[in-house]
């Protein structure tokens, strides 16, 4: 494969950026849901 370094860099950056964003959204959402749930924690 020609220019393999550039191509894999593009795929790695895409996976890294989307994965980081998805992780941030899911983790923050869970933290807020826990914070806003009733005090008894049920």
């Amino acid at each position, binding site marked *: *494969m*020609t*220019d*393999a370094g*550039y*191509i894999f*860099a*593009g*795929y790695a*950056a*895409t996976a890294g*950026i*989307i994965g980081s*964003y*998805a992780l941030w*959204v*899911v983790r*923050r*959402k*869970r933290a*807020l*849901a*826990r*914070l*806003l*749930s*009733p*005090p008894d*924690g*049920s």
Partner: protein
Amino acid sequence: MITTTSSRATRILGWLTAASLALTAVMALVISPPDVNMEDSVRLLYLHVPTAWLSMYICFGITTLASVLYLWKRTRSRFWDLTAGASAEIGVLFLGLTLLIGAIWGRITWGVYWTWDARLTTTAVLFVMYLGYLAVRKVPATPEVQSRRAAIVALASFVNVPIVHYAVEWWRTLHQAASLGSPQRLLDPQITGTMAGTLFLGVIAFTLLYAWLMAHRFRLAWLEDRLGDRQLQAAIDERRAEAGVGTGGTNEATAEPEAVR
């Protein structure tokens, strides 16, 4: 105790998204052949085209539609404002990736990461405009003013989308013209076979990814909204306590949020 904030449908969508993205990666990196002119750099276009298409037409399109529905008094609801904000944020993420992957592709094909070409420049302007939209959403004001202001900026920003789309026709540019996205190209496609199949699969995979991200980002926005209500109510109760007035405020944020179930 909360162990998950996802619905069964969202989890199924998540698995479908992961499977389709993995299949796209295999098709793009292993199965699809090199292009006659672009050689292996064509593999980057299986990411570049879906992210560009989704960000400009789907993400910003939904932001615009939701903003119109918010501004129209008959349909005005916090739901539309939160939808607009969530979709724009994902659109900015995808458009940032479009610019990044396009820069890498440009380095291979043109020898430079960036050139002040009409398509590239208008896309960069669009990116900055929607970054501005996200910034406007954070400017302190009452929720109504904040939402109305953001909706107007969203409508103004979308004006640039057709300019980006037609930039390759209106001006002489380095960026290639549409391979599929115009009526004459649909009759005489410049991409066929495995390459067209991979591109189509990429568009489906990224559309599923958008739907999955949107479901989660909307719920997060809804929870942030409820947290804001709760903090405001707490501040009011505190001031009332200081003034010796009873705290009669109800706190709707303590209820199990419907959108999180």
